[in-house]
């Protein structure tokens, strides 16, 4: 298997795994975590009412722990999918990387393995903490994540070195041919669909920042002031819980709008990247088209219904998760195609053994 196939296969696998993890996180962890954080904020407000600063600090300690739990899982999801994007992007550059076949394969394997172990390390940070660590503030999970990140940086620097050599017209071995610019329906659908998705995400982001960003920031401060004012008044219990509930709803509103914005843009970028690798997907035209349709339909469903969760609640959340599943299924279909690919393009250039 040549470097480009390693990167394409590893990239798609990383993105599919990252998205599957994101789906699991959204269904089983996200809402529960938000609920617990709200409970802790209410506990802190009650501690304010009871004039108990020690309990306030204790509650904020728990909130920090819950935020770390949530944050490391979001980071796992983001880093795994982004490492996949990076692999696909580097796969495109392989014809212009002037390194020997073995070095290119080594760099590709390092990039993919780094992309696997970096998110695993991030995921473990919350659970391992500082257990058995010889360092005062860095745990073994962070060491794993940082080492994997360093391996990825090394691999990227290797690619840059290869690009530099290519720019100076140095040849170090067989070079992959540029990917054929086929004008198939799948390629055009992915290119056009991807660009439109990015455009929609961009317009939504502009609308969000113009209409909601400042309002959300002002509302957060207003709600926090209300929580603290009510907690300090004589009759605190019920109105405080209402304000804490408002705070939770605001956080959910912000998170859903940002998730819709980022996901539609990421799917758009992914669609463009996937359009390049269609020659490597060894499936019939009919099955390739099915995979592309599943991918694009899921790419629209997920962000739209993430946004509608604000109005429709869990039903919309379920449809959004189903959209994510469609994207994953479409990608796994393409992954199967890459696995079935016979190596024709690589063999022509003598880069596969």
């Amino acid at each position: 298997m040549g470097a480009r196939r390693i990167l394409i296969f590893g990239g798609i696998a990383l993105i599919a795994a990252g998205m599957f993890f994101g789906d699991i996180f959204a269904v089983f962890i996200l809402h529960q975590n938000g609920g617990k954080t709200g409970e802790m904020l209410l506990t802190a407000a009650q501690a304010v009412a009871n004039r108990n600063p020690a309990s306030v600090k204790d509650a904020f300690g728990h909130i920090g722990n819950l935020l770390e739990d949530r944050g490391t899982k979001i980071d796992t999801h983001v880093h795994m999918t982004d490492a996949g994007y990076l692999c696909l992007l580097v796969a495109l550059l392989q014809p212009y990387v002037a390194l020997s076949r073995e070095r290119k394969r080594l760099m590709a394997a390092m990039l993919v393995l780094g992309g696997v172990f970096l998110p695993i390390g991030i995921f473990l940070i919350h659970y391992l903490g500082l257990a058995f660590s010889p360092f005062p503030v860095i745990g073994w999970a962070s060491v794993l994540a940082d080492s994997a990140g360093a391996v990825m940086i090394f691999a990227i620097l290797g690619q840059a070195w290869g690009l530099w050599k290519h720019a100076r017209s140095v040849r170090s071995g067989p070079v992959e041919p540029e990917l054929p610019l086929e004008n198939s329906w799948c390629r055009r659908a992915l290119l056009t669909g991807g660009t439109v998705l990015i455009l929609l995400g961009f317009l939504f982001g502009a609308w969000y920042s113009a209409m909601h960003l400042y309002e959300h920031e002002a509302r957060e401060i207003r709600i926090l002031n209300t929580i603290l004012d009510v907690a300090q008044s004589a009759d605190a219990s019920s109105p405080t819980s209402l304000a804490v509930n408002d705070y939770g709803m605001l956080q959910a509103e912000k998170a859903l709008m940002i998730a819709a914005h980022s996901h539609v843009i990421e799917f758009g970028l992914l669609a463009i990247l996937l359009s390049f690798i269609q020659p490597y997907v060894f499936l019939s035209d009919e099955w390739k088209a099915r995979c592309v349709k599943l991918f694009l339909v899921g790419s629209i469903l997920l962000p739209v219904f993430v946004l509608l969760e604000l109005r429709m609640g869990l039903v919309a959340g379920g449809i959004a998760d189903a959209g994510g599943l469609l994207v994953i299924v479409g990608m796994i279909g393409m992954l199967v195609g890459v696995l079935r690919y016979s190596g024709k393009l690589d063999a022509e250039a003598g880069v596969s053994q």
Partner: protein
Amino acid sequence: MSAAGKLLIFGGVGLAALGMIYGLHYAVFAEHQRLDHMGGSLATAFVEAANRNPEGTRSAIEDYRRQKFAYVREVDVHSHWVGLAMLAIALGVVFDASGFAPRTRFWLAVALLVGALIFPLGVLLQNVQPGSLAPSAMAVSGVLLVTIALAGVAFGFARK
């Protein structure tokens, strides 16, 4: 590869380098301090409220507001620069497949790159000059340029 494609790829690599250098600098020298400060000021607001110190509470909440305002924009700048750079590189590889004349493609590439540079820069400058119109105008101009360029690219791919 056409001049527009090369411009997008090299401009994208430059933008990615800028975004990553900014991100690395931010992660090493500013992010943890900012997060500690932000979390600390919110906890302080509650502790001061428990101590029935309204002045301390107000001051800590105001501090929290300022920190959060800056944090949101700092993170946005990093993610948007790198994200737009990846988009520029990816589009650069396939830009010749869009159904426009080379001159049109070149100006679309220029619009995309200039927009991708000044939109996050405007957002970052909001931290330097909070409340000033100039940084927001710069960010909005960047958004408009990127939007127009993307709409043009999508149209070009669709009609090819």
